[in-house]
């Protein structure tokens, strides 16, 4: 229904266009050009420049600015491909993106469903509250999460788990239900990965919730009713009515947040510098560390260019096959 509306808009476009007071065919371009120029000069140019750096033997930031670097062709890229840390970093990054995405989607859909449920009193307020993390700068919230994930027994999560253990023991629950506190959230590879994912999910869910909530509000009640009259139970209604309606928006939000996750820097950096032992070094951390700790600026630029290329490629694929650019292709 909605996309038929879009068609109307599209069809109307040509009609409107021919009726506008300007005969110049490409008049609209004038409105777009300033943005393109601003964007290119501030965003595109640095990327090109970064690419240039990646072709040099720059060792530290200053050697680029000061002109002390020489062109060495694709040597950095060649070195990069030989570096096992690059591959481990890439695969960890994709794993991080995939896992956090799946969790994010489930969490956000759950929250959105609950906070859109007819039986929940005061859901508008809850929705407003739940969105609050959006307002805090990442550096702050991530540092806070770093504190909560402390390995120490008095770290927040370890304390909570300790209390849980006490409670369960009081119920004389079997040993398997207890946790082995303190858990080294930042010192174990997968524990740290879990901590990253949890934090990433927390950072990204508000955006998703907003989008899903508005999608849910667009689902006509009569579809649920039609399904009810057709004899469908709650689960079937969820599958046939709710899910398809939110599929598009969820996909949209997923693609966007996945691209952001791919570029996650602060979480690993603040938590444990991609540790333990560089095992969780996400790609940007890897690039940053090459530049900062090892003074391999050219190599670092190459890493980041590869990362940008990956994000670009990812967006391209997503846009093509995810229908994200609906309305771009038509007309």
């Amino acid at each position, binding site marked *: 229904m909605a996309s038929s509306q879009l068609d109307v808009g599209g069809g109307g476009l040509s009609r409107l266009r021919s009726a506008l007071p300007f005969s110049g065919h490409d008049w609209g371009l004038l409105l777009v050009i300033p943005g393109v120029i601003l964007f290119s000069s501030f965003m595109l140019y640095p990327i090109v420049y970064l690419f240039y750096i990646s072709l040099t033997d720059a060792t*530290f*930031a*200053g*050697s*680029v*600015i*000061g*002109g*002390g670097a020489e062109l060495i062709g694709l040597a950095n890229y060649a070195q990069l491909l030989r570096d096992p840390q690059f591959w481990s970093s890439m695969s960890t990054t994709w794993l991080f993106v995939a896992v956090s995405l799946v969790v994010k989607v489930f969490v956000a859909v759950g929250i959105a469903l609950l906070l859109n449920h007819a039986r929940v009193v005061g859901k508008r307020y809850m929705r407003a509250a739940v969105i609050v993390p959006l307002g805090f700068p990442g550096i702050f919230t991530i540092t806070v999460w*770093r*504190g909560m994930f*402390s*390995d*120490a*027994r*008095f*770290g927040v999560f*370890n304390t909570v788990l300790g209390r849980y253990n006490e409670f369960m023991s009081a119920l004389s629950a079997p040993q398997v239900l207890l946790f082995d506190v*303190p858990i*080294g959230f*930042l*010192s*174990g590879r997968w524990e740290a990965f879990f901590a990253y994912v949890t934090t990433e999910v927390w950072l990204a869910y508000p955006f998703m919730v907003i989008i899903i909530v508005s999608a849910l509000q667009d689902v006509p009640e009569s579809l649920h009713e039609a399904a009810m009259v057709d004899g469908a139970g709650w689960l079937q209604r969820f599958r046939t009515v709710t899910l398809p309606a939110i599929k598009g928006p969820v996909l949209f939000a997923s693609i966007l947040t996945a691209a952001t996750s791919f570029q996650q820097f602060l979480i690993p950096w603040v938590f444990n510098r991609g*540790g*333990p*032992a*560089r095992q969780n070094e996400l790609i940007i951390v890897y690039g940053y*560390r090459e530049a*900062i*700790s*090892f*003074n391999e600026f050219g190599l670092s630029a190459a890493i980041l260019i590869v990362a940008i290329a990956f994000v670009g490629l990812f967006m391209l694929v997503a846009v093509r096959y995810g229908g994200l650019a609906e309305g771009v292709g038509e007309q």
Partner: protein
Amino acid sequence: ISTGGSGGDGSDGSDGGDAGGTATLWTDLSDGEDEAMSAYIDEYESESGDTIDKNEPGGELDQQLETAIPSGEGPDSWIWAHDWIGRFAVREEPPFLYDASDDVDASLDVFTETAQEAVQFDGALHGLPFASETVALFYNEDMVDEPPETLDDMISTMDEFHNPENGEYGLSYPVTNPYFVSGFIQAYGGDIFDTESLENDLDSEACKRGMDALERVSDYVPADPGYESQIVAFADGAAPFAINGPWEIANLSEEIENLGVTTLPTIDGNNPRTYSGIQTFYFSAMLSDADQSTVDAATGLAEWYTTNEEIIQTNAEEQGYIPVLSSVVEDGNLSEDVRAFAQQVDHGVPIPTHPNMNAVWTPLTEALTRVFNGNQESGPALDQAASEIRENQ
């Protein structure tokens, strides 16, 4: 509202006119230190007629310098521990540091020997030192009657208290930070970085024995080796000991009623050789192209400050700075806390300034982390770190 615009006038303060020069100084000090520094600068300005433009760029100072100096917008001088000297001194295109040998009037002999060495690289003078710092042993006098002399003493005390289930620990110590643990690793005479061979010595037998000693105390710290998680155990009175630097004196003395500081206990009779950092006024490469008046202002301030006994003495009392001005050190008129730190500095070694030292920190941190997490035995961990460091150089 117009608060924008072109802002400050950068580093080229030489607009002629009055006699004094103008120099910019970047600092990254805590509030108390900063206040004191500002006051001294005012004093210097009125005495000399120079203008010092002190800024606090915040964030990571070295990152700021990395971009600012090459683009010609860096400061004329900055204050930091001496360990960046080597890293910056080898930079050529563009250069980062300025050789002030010809501009400094005072003889370097007024400083302690370690301090003199610290501010020079390849014969060039890149800064002037004014304080040193290292880690020593804090103890809670309510829990510890007698400061421990030996590691065994200390461990037996820690055994008394250590009980994590009840939220009690033996020690607060960021045990994966090479700077903090350098004393233990180097206790048996091994060197993390050998300034002669310009190689690391981590896989030496001596270092490995030091590492074993470190592992003995590591069992008594909270499971999170992060700085903030560690210090809180001591600060809350949940641990009798902490190994930390003079910068914590102010905070801790507020939290712990009877705070004691002493040198690190001996290990098999050896004094732990901790790394020390020497606070330095750096002379930046900005000075190479600057007017002489600016150079004079920058070096003048450094000279005045670092050689002023009164300042150094006051700093020792108020900020816990360990003096490196020989006259003050020898005077012996220092508080007990500071004396403990000064003593520890004596036992220790300055952080090597050689640029190769840069490659040491990360692999060593990782090795320490692996050992602390129980993922690797200490011996192989050090071997691995040593070979990684060699590879990276």
